[in-house]
């Protein structure tokens, strides 16, 4: 029989305001097993915890029930308290009488009655608690970073800096991500390439970092400290270790009409290509959908011109299996498709472009060598209209666009408008805005400069329709402040498209069992206090995969994620969760039902010899749970027909005792 102590917390007036705490502690005193019951203003405070420790010693308690806030809040606190008092930490149960009682009910008698019942359920459960010891598992001292944009690069560099090996998996042929496509960065107007490419070189030269470019993660198994990851290295038909990146093949390749994705299709590349001059790794890649040699065996020119002999048309996709202790997701973002917003005529005119395309048009390494020219006819545009919030801040019932603010558009549009006016003072620049949001260091000052010093026309209102006619784009918009409908004959229209998480994020989240919000952004373990950790242990978040972010924010989050990874990898052993499944071998049928539902492959079978009452022996197949792999979901316990499989901490008997206590 347990000797249980009950501790009812007032939580100031949070609980005591709606629950008669004295009545609760009095009522629970009479429950079976309870030998001590009290209440106190703040159970989680030092004084409250001391009270528990003292009670354990005075009354020889074997179990503790704390009636307080949600176990998600302070279960860990009170387990530590129990440990300090010399008890097994798993002899503690929490009755949630705040979030699920005092805060949702207004009437004191009702709240008190419910609090007593919840307390009874916790007492009933503790009566059946047994001391649990968590298992330990080793930590593989290697990290995986998925995504090689600025977020992934910074995270990898910081982890490597602490002395741990890191692998970066990037699905494109080069690392660099979106930042490599940008021209200047706000609000300081540094050249993006000038600050990014040295970091890319650092990655390439860092002995602790391996880059798997043109690769993707196809399978993740295991758990924190012990992930088994399968990486698919797509065949690039070029031997990476031999290619010198000289570019002779690129020059000679006869197939030169492939839309260049790095320039967002605004110019062409060859079938064998290096995405841009500073690519890392600087290695050529053959596009199998464009290469004549790969498609029909005719050509082979690149192999002939390659002095290094790096071309290999027979290369196959390669699967690499590697162990990691921690995984950082840095899958980034993309602008959304403009298909559902064709009132802006994006699909009807080449001169309606997205802001990312505008970046390429002004980038010295872009399709126009940095000259701002119209995609349709290569003429200099004299009137440019920027449209903000295209697809951002939409109502869900409008069924297009995103509900959130994409956060970066106000600032990059100010940058584009300012730079255009700076370089081409003869250009009229209109920015149609709903609100200008500039909450960052030096952001509002930057926006004001665009208006006051550079003479950008900021118009409060939205564009309703863009009509291509002749070589003009007829823009119809509203100017809400002067209560007019404007008609502007523009040469170029730039849409600040909303951004969304990369499409690869959703399947990756499934592999990682990391949760996502409805917009497919990864959710953090706690929105304020654990912003770079996913709720899944060992999985960390870096950059825009967690939510829209600009570069400074991304870099600081990348560093934070790295420090969390370093903290994990610095440990030699991890303490596991002891609330895991276990099978009673006497009852187990060996039927394999549990194995089939286990999401972790934690259950195996062995033939075990049993001594029978009649002194014979019998060999029977039984299930065995691997405690390091089991995560404690309990799926097996229900699949098991005989009830041999049970779960520590949430045993069938315990749950039924709770049911009984509640229904009694």
């Amino acid at each position, binding site marked *: 029989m347990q000797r249980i102590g009950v501790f009812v917390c007032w939580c100031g007036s949070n609980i005591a305001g709606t629950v008669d705490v004295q009545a609760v502690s009095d009522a629970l005193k009479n429950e079976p097993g309870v030998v001590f019951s009290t209440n106190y203003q703040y159970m989680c405070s030092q004084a409250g915890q001391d009270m528990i420790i003292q009670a354990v010693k005075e009354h020889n308690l074997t179990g503790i029930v704390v009636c307080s806030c949600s176990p998600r809040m302070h279960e860990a606190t009170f387990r530590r308290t129990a440990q300090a008092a010399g008890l097994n930490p798993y002899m503690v149960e929490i009755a949630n009488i705040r979030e699920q009682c005092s805060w949702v009910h207004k009437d004191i008698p009702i709240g008190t009655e419910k609090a007593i019942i919840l307390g009874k359920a916790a007492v009933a459960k503790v009566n059946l608690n047994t001391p649990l010891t968590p298992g330990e598992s080793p930590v593989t001292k290697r990290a995986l970073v998925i995504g090689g944009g600025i977020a992934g690069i910074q995270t990898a560099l910081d982890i490597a800096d602490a002395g741990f090996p890191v692998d970066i998996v990037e699905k494109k042929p080069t690392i660099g991500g979106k930042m490599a496509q940008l021209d200047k960065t706000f609000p300081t107007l540094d050249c993006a390439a000038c600050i990014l490419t040295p970091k890319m070189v650092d990655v390439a030269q860092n002995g602790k970092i391996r880059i798997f470019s043109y690769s993707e993660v196809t399978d993740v198994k295991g758990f924190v400290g012990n992930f088994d990851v399968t990486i698919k290295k797509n065949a690039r038909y070029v031997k990476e270790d031999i290619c010198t990146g000289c570019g002779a093949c690129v020059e000679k390749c006869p197939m030169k009409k492939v839309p260049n994705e790095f320039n967002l299709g605004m110019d062409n590349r060859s079938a064998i290509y290096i995405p841009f001059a500073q690519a890392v790794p600087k290695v050529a890649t053959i596009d199998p959908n464009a290469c004549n040699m790969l498609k029909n065996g005719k050509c082979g020119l690149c192999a002939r011109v390659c002095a290094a002999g790096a071309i290999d048309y027979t290369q196959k996709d390669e699967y690499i299996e590697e162990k990691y202790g921690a995984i950082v997701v840095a899958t980034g973002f993309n602008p959304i498709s403009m298909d*559902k917003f*064709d009132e802006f005529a994006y699909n*009807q005119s080449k001169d309606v472009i997205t802001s990312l395309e505008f970046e390429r048009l002004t980038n010295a390494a872009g399709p126009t060598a940095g000259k701002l020219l119209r995609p349709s006819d290569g003429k200099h545009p004299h009137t440019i209209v920027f449209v903000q919030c295209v697809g951002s801040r939409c109502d869900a019932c409008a*069924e297009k666009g995103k509900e959130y603010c994409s956060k970066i558009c106000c600032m990059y549009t100010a940058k584009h408008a300012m730079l255009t006016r700076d370089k081409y003072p003869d250009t009229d620049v209109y920015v149609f805005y709903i609100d200008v949001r500039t909450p960052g260091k030096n952001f509002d000052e930057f926006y004001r400069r665009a208006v006051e010093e550079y003479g950008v026309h900021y118009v409060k209102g939205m564009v309703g329709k863009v009509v291509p006619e002749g070589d003009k784009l007829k823009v119809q918009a509203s100017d809400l402040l002067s209560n007019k409908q404007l008609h502007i004959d523009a040469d170029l229209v730039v849409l600040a498209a909303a951004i969304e998480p990369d499409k690869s994020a959703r399947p990756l989240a499934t592999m990682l069992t990391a949760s996502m919000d409805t917009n497919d952004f990864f959710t953090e373990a706690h929105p304020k206090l654990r912003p770079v950790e996913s709720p899944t242990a060992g999985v960390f978040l870096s950059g825009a995969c967690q939510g829209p972010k600009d570069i400074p924010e991304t870099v600081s989050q990348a560093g934070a994620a790295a420090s969390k990874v370093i903290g994990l990898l610095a440990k030699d052993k991890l303490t596991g969760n002891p609330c895991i499944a276990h099978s009673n071998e006497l009852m187990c049928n060996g039927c394999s039902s549990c194995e089939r539902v286990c999401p972790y492959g934690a259950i195996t079978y062995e033939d075990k010899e049993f001594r029978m009452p009649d002194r014979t022996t019998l060999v029977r197949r039984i299930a065995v749970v691997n405690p390091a792999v089991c995560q404690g979901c309990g799926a097996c316990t229900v699949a098991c027909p005989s009830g041999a499989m049970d779960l520590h901490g949430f045993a069938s008997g315990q749950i039924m005792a709770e049911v009984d206590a509640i229904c009694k």
Partner: protein
Amino acid sequence: MKVAYFPGCTLKNKAKQLDDYAKKAAEALGVTLEEIEEWQCCGGVFTTACDEVATKLSSVRDLVAAKNKEQPLVTVCSACHNVIKQTNHAMQTNKEFADKVNRYMGEEPYSGETQVYHYLELLRDVVGFDAVKEKVVNKLSGKKIAAYYGCLLLRPNGVMKMDDPENPTIMEDFIRAIGADAVVYANRNECCGGYIAMESPDLAKKKSNAVIENAKAAGAEMIITACPLCKYNLIKNGADIPVVYFTELLAEALGVKEDTNE
């Protein structure tokens, strides 16, 4: 196959060709348009106010007639289509409204079971543009035709669900199916001012001109439409290229136009 057919008032008067050509062409494509008996005027315009019940009853009766025939209901006129489809949608989604309507109807309650097709949807989703292409005998090759959708066919998109309301393709696909060249221009889904043509002829003229000019700038030699109101408006307001019903071109392409000119 046989489908229920709702011609509407204008197709029996000012827009007889739209009706005649539609029937002949459908027949040639293996679809019989069976006019529902004693059909009633759709009401011309759908009132969005949810407390307007009586004005929508005539449309509901047409829908019920099709339901009783156990056939989908096909319309040609854009305005009729808009009104009937929106009424049907209201019957499906607004229970309170449907209850009120059914109290007038007095028969078995109706809750939007009838499938409503525009003639163009019939061509695309039931017959298939590929099948149309195969039946074409007079290819209208080389003709640069601009499709004019207007507003009623496409909007509100949440109800009409015919095509992408900002970049529709159904009429362009139709034009290509009969062998002509489709001219794509931005104003093809902008309103011609149809409903206010009596009330504010000047505004209607402005809107119609914007459509015609934009189509011509894109190289159109002819405009097709599914709406008598649009056709009236565009012609009245100085279209200097032909504006015809799409069914007329379809009949011509299928080689059944002559039969119709009695």
